[in-house]
């Protein structure tokens, strides 16, 4: 199962990459939403993406809004990985096209549970 981790923090990308590999995923990384859109624009179609919220250049919510619209129209599952807990913000992400969200700090188990909720069993 292919995954794309989108986070401006190299440390967090590494932590998420490690956990997803342990869960049996093949993982690619992007440092921000714009870089992720470039990957998708070149035909990369992961089963799911883990998207940080607070990023420079293009925030996670801007990425979610963009990726669900043409020309991308991605059907990949989108999981926000965030410290954002405000209900209004979470609702905004879900309305924009996110499928789930994981709170930071997270564990491998909490990531696995969210993927299972989405029917993604690595």
């Amino acid at each position: 199962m292919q995954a794309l981790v989108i986070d401006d923090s190299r440390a967090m990308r590494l932590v998420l990459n490690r956990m997803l590999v342990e869960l049996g995923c093949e993982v690619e990384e992007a440092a921000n939403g714009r870089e992720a859109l470039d990957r998708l624009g070149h035909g990369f179609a992961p089963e799911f993406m883990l998207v940080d919220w607070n990023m420079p250049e293009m925030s996670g919510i801007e990425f979610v809004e963009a990726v669900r619209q043409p020309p991308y129209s991605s059907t990949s599952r989108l999981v926000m990985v965030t410290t954002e807990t405000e209900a209004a913000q979470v609702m905004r992400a879900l309305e924009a096209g996110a499928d789930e969200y994981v709170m930071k700090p997270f564990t491998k188990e909490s990531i696995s549970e969210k993927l299972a909720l989405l029917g993604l069993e690595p």
Partner: protein
Amino acid sequence: MSMTTIEEDIREIARTIWASLFELTIEPGPDPAGAVQAEVTSLVHIDGAWQGAVVLQCEMGLATALSQAMFQSTDAPSFADVCDALGEITNMLAGNLKALLPEPSVLSLPAVARGSDYEFAVPGTTVAATVPLVSNGQPLVVRLLERTEGGGK
């Protein structure tokens, strides 16, 4: 805001972050005044219904250990990697604290400084909470700074 409660909250949030990211201990520390030589300062602003900042300060030895733990490397981390690791830890502290403060509000991107001879201030704020901690035998301190009425930006 109850000082005791917010300080307990900060300790609990820190314990949760450490448990999820590191194989390092974190325990309450002694009186923070002067206990931590702030060789690294990491800050995230909170802006909105509640205004202020979360500040994490520690010595370079601990910053190095935390960075190595996040990157799972025994090599000496670059300052970019220290900024990345400390900034992300502070972001998690601030995000989880923000949930306990008046909403709506947003977080800034982290800022990280290092050095041995500098003073640090966020104008217009006062210290709402100071939480000394010890990780891996090395001290760190987390402060919650609250913008006071009339504090200029």
